[in-house]
């Protein structure tokens, strides 16, 4: 797996080297499924409602799809299986260490906390009670676009490096450089 063969999707409109989308839609699926050589999708999305002790940007380690929907509903696209297995799709910082070259200053991605995202319907803001429920189910924050993107990517046989950035925050230059590199 080579990170250099990565499709880069940004839902935060912050990173110039990425394809920008306001929210997950059919065009995201088309980008994931196009024939451009890729093994990984790098996704940057907003994180909302971070649990206590989960400040800052996160690498997703797993997710709960709480949206009530799934991008694969409908006739199956021949790019993938009817019933895709979506475990072990998210890449960890450790997974990226030996991908390209040895990080001379350490791997900045490893400084990000990892967490579990609850994927909810785009635009939905959870109230305190709903947040508490999401935390009790294992989520550390919620976001709108990463979960359907990951499902579409997994179906297409791609791994996902997903980064969730809280509102009003940016990824550090080191992380951005790492992704660019």
């Amino acid at each position, binding site marked *: 797996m080579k990170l250099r063969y990565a499709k880069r999707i940004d839902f935060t409109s912050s990173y110039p080297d990425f394809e920008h989308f306001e929210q997950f839609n059919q065009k995201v699926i088309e980008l994931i499924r196009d024939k451009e050589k890729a093994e990984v999708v790098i996704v940057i999305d907003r994180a909302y409602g971070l649990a206590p002790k989960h400040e800052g940007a996160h690498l997703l380690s*797993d*997710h*709960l*799809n*709480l*949206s*009530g*929907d*799934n991008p*694969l*509903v*409908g*006739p*199956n696209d021949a790019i993938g*299986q*009817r*019933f*895709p*297995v*979506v*475990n072990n799709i998210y890449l960890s910082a450790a997974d990226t260490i030996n991908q390209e070259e040895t990080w001379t200053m350490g791997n900045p991605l490893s400084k990000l906390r990892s967490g*579990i995202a609850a994927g*909810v*319907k785009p635009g*939905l803001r*959870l109230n305190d009670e*709903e947040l508490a*429920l*999401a935390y*009790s*189910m*294992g*989520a550390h924050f919620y976001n709108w676009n990463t979960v359907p993107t990951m*499902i579409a990517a*997994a*179906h297409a046989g791609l791994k996902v490096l997903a980064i969730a950035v809280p509102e009003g925050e940016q990824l550090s230059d080191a992380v951005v450089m790492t992704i660019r590199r």
Partner: protein
Amino acid sequence: MITTAPKTAADAVGQLKQISSVVPVAAIVLGSGVSVLDDLHDARVISYQELFGLAPGVAGHSGTLTIGHTEDGPMVAVLRGRFHLYEGYDWPTVTLAARAIVEWGVPNLLLTNAAGGLNLEYSVGDLMVLTGYRDHLNPQLKTTGLLPAIKIPPTDCRNSLSEKLLEVGEKLTLGSKEKSLQQGVYAGLLGPCYETMAEIEMLRRLKADAVGMSTVPEMLSCDGSATTAAAVSVITNVWRPEEAMGGHEEVLTASKNASKRLDRLFRAVLTELGKA
């Protein structure tokens, strides 16, 4: 793209009445890879295409309805396959077969499904009689998300038919090496992808014992009707963090292997229902 069946439950019942003047004592819906009652006497077969105007498109579902009777047993209708929400069918289509069974006046509906085991005490091939279910696939949840569904406890679906399954199952295992039937809560999810490990852990916290992508719409279709519905899950895998998750082939193999036990169970239950 949402697909609606071109025929109604009334259309289907009209055709079924032409095939059989006798209303079966039970209808059985078979899920992925599950195979029972393959040797019905005086069998009459009609395809879903003819009956509902649609054929199921998932491997392991033949898409036929067979009416016949077991040896010395009552008349039964066996439905091989179902329509799923994940295929893009709307709720009326997914519930069409069950609504036709209700409208036909069939007093008992036995549903089967292939399900992933959440309960760590389960083994592959176990049969679980549903005592409850969680509805995490209702299209209404597209508007609200799953959180409202998570908040509510499972729906209790124990009734005379599920009790009959357990009672007959107990008798069949007495004195044999066969494992007793499990009983538990089924979580119906939209699919079509299998669950992430975080979702599996969430469902375990919600006290679900098995998870699948069907059955709940059919159970709901029988609510308030004269048809009593009960369901049996064939446990096709048990998800443990240290084990890789299998795919649909594994599901079909496990279903096939458990079908013999299910066949014995259903034949015995049908005999009992025929006596009633």
